[in-house]
């Protein structure tokens, strides 16, 4: 688990901030916890009184016994009710707080700069919102139910014992810490063993990840025996360190139980002597023995709860860190809504870099007239998507300005800017849901006819019809049940439905079968007709038909012009173009 910059005090304060909203439930929970503890402690005393009414043959006070039995029944019923109410309150607070935190985290995801999402592993972000919040909720719940009642039980027991017989109470108070000490000592000693165990587990996991994850390569190179050998070596080490860690950690319980039995014995001894001296009744001795059992239990529980709470706080701080990331700069106050879009786009002395020390785009100027096609070309990984990032305002330019219809895009609302762009990226993202839901993603109010018309226009209709449930076929997460080309067609249809005046298209490279590819090309051509388009281009035909070609290399735009101009320059484009034909 990664450490965070938040101190635990800060984290606790923040957690309390979330809990504060439910102060009424919290107050209720605390009240009923107190009631539960007091009643729970009172019951053994009543039982003790009961025992005192049963002295021996012919010496049983049945009338008194009846009264006590009634009292016990009432106390027990009240305890149970209080306990249930307390638990329910705790559940409610915990799950509500957890939901609040998750909601906040998700809202942050939708508002944070794309830079953050691009730079962080999605798995890590997901685990913060899911696993960490879960861990936190477990810890919080345990904290409420056990830590809280545990502490109260300890205090309550002390008070009750002191009231009945301070001598015995003293004995209990003196011996009990031994149990804590023993538990602590063992935990410390085993810590390094556990660390070794988890290190070795990490080693074996990464070997398994590699060898099983890439089992096909292992087989192709006949590496099975070597892999087995390596596994056996680590497995052997894991066995011995795991045995030590498991055994030594499992001696905690017996050891503390032993200390508890010492406490119990001491109470029995001192108690018996007190009974003889007449300062204690036999019944109350039973109550004491009962307490001796109860008293040590919360101690053992609390040490477990404390670790759990620490984990919970660490988890919480990871979520808070996410929540507290700055959101993207809000739209300017006077931001206008982009209405009349003629399709002209200007890039005026644009500077941009992802990292300060690595300048990327420097002084880029581009004038795109309505309806023009701009092709962006360059080798894989040269940063063609940077331009898309800037046009869509996923990232802001460092210097200079991008203008749409003469307006600086920072002066118009993001919503209206993005509404005017239709975007088809190479990563064909679809959400889980039906085909229809995906097509009408940008226009949920679209009618059935509109959806089908769009699908026909993008040549997706025919394959959609062949799907098991047609337009109602449910697409699994990330479109697992569709081919890459089909996904691309759906992404195109999604844009086709609303068909904004400007387009950003990323031609997919490989992994699309020829037939589909031709359909995609046709769909693209239909969309681009009369619209300003920016195309990350891989096909020669697209490039040749473009009005402007931007040639990118290492993240920079190094050449700009039409196909013929660029060929005449005999620069990088010329090289790139010719290499396609070389052998």
């Amino acid at each position, binding site marked *: 688990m990664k450490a965070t910059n938040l101190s635990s005090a800060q984290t606790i304060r923040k957690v309390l901030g979330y809990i504060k909203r439910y102060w009424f439930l919290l107050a209720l929970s605390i009240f009923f916890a107190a009631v539960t503890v007091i009643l729970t402690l009172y019951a053994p005393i009543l039982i003790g009184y*009961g025992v005192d009414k*049963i*002295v021996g043959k*012919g*010496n*049983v006070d*049945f009338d008194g*016994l009846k009264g006590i*039995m009634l009292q016990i*029944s009432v106390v*027990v019923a009240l*305890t149970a009710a209080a306990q249930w109410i307390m638990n329910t309150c705790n*559940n409610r607070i915990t*799950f509500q707080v957890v939901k609040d935190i998750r*909601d906040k985290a998700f*809202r942050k*995801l*939708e508002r944070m700069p*794309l830079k953050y999402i691009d730079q962080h592993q999605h798995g890590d*972000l*997901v685990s913060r*919102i899911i696993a960490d919040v879960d861990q936190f909720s477990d810890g919080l719940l345990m904290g409420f139910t056990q830590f809280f009642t545990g502490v109260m039980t300890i205090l309550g027991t002390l008070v009750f014992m002191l009231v009945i017989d301070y001598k015995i109470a003293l004995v209990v108070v003196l011996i009990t810490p031994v149990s804590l000490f023993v538990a602590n000592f063992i935990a410390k000693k085993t810590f390094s063993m556990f660390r070794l165990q988890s290190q070795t*587990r990490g080693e*074996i996991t990464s070997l398994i990840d590699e060898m*099983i994850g890439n089992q096909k390569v292992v087989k*192709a190179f006949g590496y*099975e025996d070597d*892999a*087995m050998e390596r*596994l*056996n070596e680590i497995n052997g080490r894991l*066995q011995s360190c*795991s045995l030590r860690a498991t*055994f030594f950690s*499992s*001696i905690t319980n017996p050891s503390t139980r*032993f200390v508890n*039995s010492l406490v119990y014995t001491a109470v*029995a001894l001192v108690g*018996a002597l007190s009974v*003889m001296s007449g300062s204690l009744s036999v019944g109350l001795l039973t109550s004491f*023995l009962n307490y001796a059992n109860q008293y040590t239990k919360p101690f053992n529980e609390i040490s477990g709860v404390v670790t759990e709470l620490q984990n919970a706080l660490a988890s919480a701080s990871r979520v808070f860190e996410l929540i507290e990331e700055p959101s993207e700069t809000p739209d300017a106050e006077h931001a206008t809504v982009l209405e009349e879009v003629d399709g002209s786009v200007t890039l005026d002395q644009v500077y941009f870099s992802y990292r300060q020390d690595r300048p990327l785009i420097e002084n880029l100027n581009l004038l795109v007239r309505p309806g023009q096609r701009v092709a962006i070309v360059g080798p894989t*990984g040269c940063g063609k998507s940077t331009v898309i990032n800037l046009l869509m305002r996923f990232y802001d330019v460092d210097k200079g300005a991008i203008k749409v219809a003469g307006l600086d895009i920072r002066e118009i609302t993001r919503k209206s800017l993005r509404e005017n762009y239709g*975007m088809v*990226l190479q990563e064909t*993202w679809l*959400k*889980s849901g039906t085909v229809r839901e995906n097509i009408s993603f940008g226009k949920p109010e679209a009618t059935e006819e509109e959806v089908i018309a769009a699908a026909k226009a993008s040549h997706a209709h025919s394959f959609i019809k062949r799907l098991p449930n047609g337009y109602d076929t449910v697409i699994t*997460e990330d479109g697992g049940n569709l081919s*890459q080309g089909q996904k691309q067609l759906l992404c195109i249809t*999604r844009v086709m439905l609303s068909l904004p005046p400007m387009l950003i298209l990323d031609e997919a490279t490989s992994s*699309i*079968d*020829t037939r589909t590819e031709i359909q995609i*090309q046709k769909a693209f051509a239909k969309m681009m007709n009369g619209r300003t388009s920016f195309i990350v281009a891989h*096909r020669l035909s697209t490039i040749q038909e473009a009005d402007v070609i931007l040639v990118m290399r290492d993240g920079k735009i190094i050449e700009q012009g039409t196909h013929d101009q660029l060929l005449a320059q005999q620069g990088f484009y010329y090289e790139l173009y010719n*290499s396609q*034909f*070389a*052998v």
Partner: protein
Amino acid sequence: MIKLLRYLKSYRKESILGPLFKLLEASFELLIPLVVAQIIDVGIPNEDVPYIIKMCLLMVLLGIIGLVCSLTAQYFAAKAAVGFSTVIRRDLFAHIQSLSYSELDQIGTSTLMTRMTSDINQVQNGVNLVLRLFLRSPFIVFGAMVMAFTIDIKSAGVFAVTIPALSVVVFGIMLVSIPLYRKVQARLDRVMQITRENLAGARVVRAFNKEADEIAAYDQAGEELKGVQVFVGKISALLNPVTYVMVNLAIVVLIWVSGVQVDVGNLSQGEVVALISYMSQILVELIKLANLIISFTKAIACGNRIQSIFEIQPGMKETEKPVVKMPVTDSVVEFHDVSFTYQGAKEESLSGIHFTAKRGDTIGIIGGTGSGKSSLVNLIPRFYDVTDGEVLIHGVNVKEYPFEQLRDKIGLVPQKAVLFQGSIRDNLRWGKKDATEEEMNRALEIAQAKDFVDAKENGLDSEVLQNGKNLSGGQRQRLTIARAVIKKPEILILDDSASALDYATDARLRKAIREMDPDITVFLVSQRAATIQYADQILVLDDGELAGIGTHQQLLDTCEVYREIYYSQFPRKESGHESNEPV
């Protein structure tokens, strides 16, 4: 799960002794209330201080014996559990390695990795817990009842009623709540899915201005999650209060019944105390048992998942014949009317494939995704068995070759560029264990990787991180090519493995391979027409069938599918481009 228990056989001694010692400890624990009863009935009335001290020492002694027994038990349990999981891990790994590509496809490697790691750990914990505690709790519950019966049969009747009633309540609540927990998990999965989706599709969501809708969908999912959580919380919150009430009411009844018995002289006061403490003990143990069952069900589920992997039999048998004597022929690879269907698939992936690859030939394979290109080359090293027809190498069916001999002849560069943790040197050794420095450099040169490896500070000893993530896609591809050529194979298969290289590098690579060994037979799978254009034979695949076979020129003249592919990549409009061809 039960079948997995065979792995405990080698730890039979430990698995029997562990629980046995645990039972011993429990028996000593059950004796304590009797000793206390003696103190109350004999020591106190007689004011016999030495007797009381003797009894207390006896309790300490019982405690010590209990401690020793329990430590022994913990050790045996830990040893058996850790040993158990070590053996399973080893065997499961070996088993996975024996599976063929078909099974790997069906199960999926990520599943296999979870089985190997977290599932095995869970099972280890489960076995450890069971050996330690599973017998103990029921033993104490029934032991307490037996002890009660030995004290007084009439009073013990209360136990006989209470225990079944308690069991019904405890297990009833568990039965109700376990499926609900599964529901919680399903709802949580949905929340996780939306989170993941919104991270992956952040650009699309924003481009379509769907943030608010996504937040609404997320809130809805979160609300549903909270709903079940609170509901299941209410039910499981019943467990403690209800059992508490039952046990205490049982104590009330017990007091009355034993009061009657004491009155007639069948029972002493100390024995009443003993009976009460047995009753309290039962409650504690039942709750423990309930918690244990929850972790136990988890372990069983994991165990079953592991067992299900063991039950998958490798679908391919290696020939038991010795190494095939190498006939020397010029027909290196022959496909005789080969058809192939993936396991579980409805349609054939390849049908009626027939061709011969001669020594020194370059065979180009082109076609869309799903057209069967990779399937075809995967049949050569016998990663899959054909469903019909036969694949011959030097005139001998691939099924007649031992795996090692067959795969030694073949250098495979898979589509996905997989590298392993270690140095570049380590990775090259996958191809040839005893490769010399010179051979490595030569291989890197051929693979066009020498430049970037030399540019690294540590050259061949530079570290490769897991999955080669510290290298670019193109660099990884070139290293996987080097790994394949270093073994100087007779047959080299490049399965679309130059897709991340630019056209010029791709061309240089092909040239270098040819120069390395004129006799090598090369299979080039590609989406790019330029890559395979100059092959001696081009196989054009369309939907698993051979749509055409021949040279580039022949295919242009005769094969419609080839023309379609070719002209989609090299538009023919302006025939001037073809004059760019240097060859």
